[in-house]
């Protein structure tokens, strides 16, 4: 408590202009930056998987299961960032029991559970059911039991049953696409519907969130596919990687266009809040916005992948470009979330000044904690890839 007070006095000394006294302290820190980042990765990875499944882009086959399992790993972790940020985390369940019908945040639990249970888990289960049955027969000891449990007691792997799995999986993916949009679009709405905050309050916010989610999710799978192939010492399917990069390129263009439209509209209308936002982007946000989000997170990736679309580039160089741009995009979208969440709290709602944000290292809202929440999905992913190895799935003949 004393440390916190001291921290606030330090922030008070750095206030520029005038902010309402209650605004010196930021309400939402890095955990709330992570939440939309994580759910964005989930939605994006799922959309990539659905390209293969629903839109029959078969060349993406090698990443289908990887994308689904990645989405699940990140989705499992996402709510913990929210719950651990709450002042009263033990009351979090109230949001499910007595949701307030007018609150955008109140539907969180329902959308989350719907997506987790009715979409992702079910789709993965249907996709793996046949393998569970086979693996349960092949394995011995504990693993046999594990796969038996995972198969939920089903044993039928006749072509008819497998076809039914496939059919149901297809239907769930079709339902999953709008669900993924809903999952992330609603996160955008949480910000976009706050009329008190002109940096957030834009009707484009949910749409921008959806497209930036697709950008980040596709970039993540692109990098993960390369990393997993490297670890497994197998050759990367370049046709697949090139196609992922192509979709990343398209999504980057769409996302960049939408975000530009939002800013151009804001600049052209130059409403009451324009001056303070102008100072915000040129001051406290200039590095995270212009350098990380726009320049290295969007423009460089767009140009580099764009070049590959036009010119013939050697495979080895392409791989390096994909790896570097993938990471740059992932960093860029993280800072996009940062600029929305933190940026939106740095200026006063009275438009007369700025407060400050300093990320602490320790504590539940500190950098180390954030890194832990960022590493955890990868640990879960590693475990799930061990438990449900896509490369050990047997082709249906």
């Amino acid at each position, binding site marked *: *408590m004393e440390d*916190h*007070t001291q921290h*606030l006095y330090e922030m*008070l000394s750095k206030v520029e*202009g*005038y*902010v*309402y*006294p*209650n*605004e*010196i*302290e930021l*309400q*939402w820190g890095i955990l709330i930056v992570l939440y939309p980042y994580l759910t964005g990765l989930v939605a994006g990875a799922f959309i990539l998987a659905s390209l293969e499944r*629903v*839109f*029959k882009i078969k060349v993406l086959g090698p990443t289908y299961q990887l994308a689904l399992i990645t989405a699940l790993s990140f989705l499992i972790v996402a709510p913990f960032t929210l719950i651990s*940020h*709450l*002042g*009263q*985390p033990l*009351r*979090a369940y*109230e*949001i499910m029991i*007595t*949701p*307030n*019908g*007018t*609150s*955008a*945040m*109140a539907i*969180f639990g329902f959308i989350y559970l719907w997506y987790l249970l009715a979409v992702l888990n079910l789709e993965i289960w249907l996709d793996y059911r046949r393998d569970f049955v086979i693996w349960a027969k092949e394995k011995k000891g504990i693993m046999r039991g594990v796969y038996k449990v995972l198969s939920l007691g089903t044993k039928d792997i006749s072509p008819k049953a497998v076809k039914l799995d496939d059919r149901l999986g297809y*239907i769930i993916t*079709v*339902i999953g*696409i*709008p669900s993924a949009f809903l999952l992330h679009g609603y996160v955008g709405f*949480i910000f976009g*519907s*706050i*009329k*008190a*905050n002109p940096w957030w309050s834009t009707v484009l916010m949910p749409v921008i969130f959806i497209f930036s989610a697709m950008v980040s999710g596709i970039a993540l799978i692109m990098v993960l596919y390369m990393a997993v192939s490297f670890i497994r010492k197998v050759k990367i399917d370049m046709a697949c990687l090139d196609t992922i990069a192509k979709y990343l390129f398209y999504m980057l263009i769409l996302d960049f266009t939408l975000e530009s439209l939002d800013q151009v509209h804001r600049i052209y209308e130059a409403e009451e809040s324009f001056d303070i936002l102008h100072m915000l982007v040129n001051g406290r946000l200039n590095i995270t916005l212009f350098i990380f989000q726009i320049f290295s997170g969007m423009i460089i990736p767009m140009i580099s992948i764009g070049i590959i679309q036009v010119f013939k580039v050697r495979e080895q160089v392409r791989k390096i470009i994909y790896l570097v741009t993938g990471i740059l995009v992932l960093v860029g979208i993280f800072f996009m979330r940062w600029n929305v969440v933190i940026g939106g*709290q740095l200026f*006063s*709602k*009275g*438009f*007369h*000044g700025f407060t400050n944000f300093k990320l602490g290292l320790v504590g539940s809202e500190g950098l180390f904690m954030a890194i832990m929440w960022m590493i955890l999905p990868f640990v879960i992913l590693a475990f799930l890839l061990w438990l449900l190895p896509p490369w050990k799935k047997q082709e249906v003949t």
Partner: protein
Amino acid sequence: MKSSRRKFMKASIAAAGTLVLSSATRPFDVLLMASDPPPEEGPWWGIAIDITKCIGCGLCARGCKVENDVPEEPFYFRTWVEQYTVLNNGEVKIESPNGGIDGFKHSVPEEEIFKTFFVPKMCNQCSKSPCTQVCPVGATFESPDGVALVDEKYCIGCGYCVQACPYGCRYFHPEKKVADKCTLCYHRLKKGLDPACMEVCPTKARIYGNLRDRDSEIVNFLREHDYQVLKPHLNTGSKLYYNGLSAEIS
């Protein structure tokens, strides 16, 4: 490929249609403002602040902190006073050191001042309050007599209401770990006492009263003065009316 796209489109249209049909049973109700129409009986509290009367003594902010156990540090206020100084060159300087509790000092040479005045701030007790609208669990609610309150035993401490208040009138209580705000001293109001900030104000710059009672002090005040609310374009249904609200004030 074409046929799968067609199937996808069909499924999407069917899903969207179901949504539209189901929402037609209560069209848009869930998306509308949080507040139900006010009950027709009983008092409907509002506040009036006369900027021309405020002398910036800060007793209101101090009285509020004492009465409501508001943390002492200068980051937590249910009410505070701002000093606006408009300079000859048109520049506006706003200050509120410790919420005005310790009074104000001139920070601008007198010859450079075009005009200066004090603006007391507190919860606007909006009738279409954004804070009530966004609370995910309904811990923030509007009392039947029009006061926005927080149930501190129910609040989950998400901070969404603090973000939603356009006036900066909410804070996160550092010990209780829940949202906190002005209650118009509801505990006093119910006993027929004035809110603490109004009781201690030496110039009666703040008054409150029943907006439904045509003979009440506040209704007479509104009749006799040109009043305005803060940020009217946000349509929050503010029930805090200012006399002498200059264009610089936000």
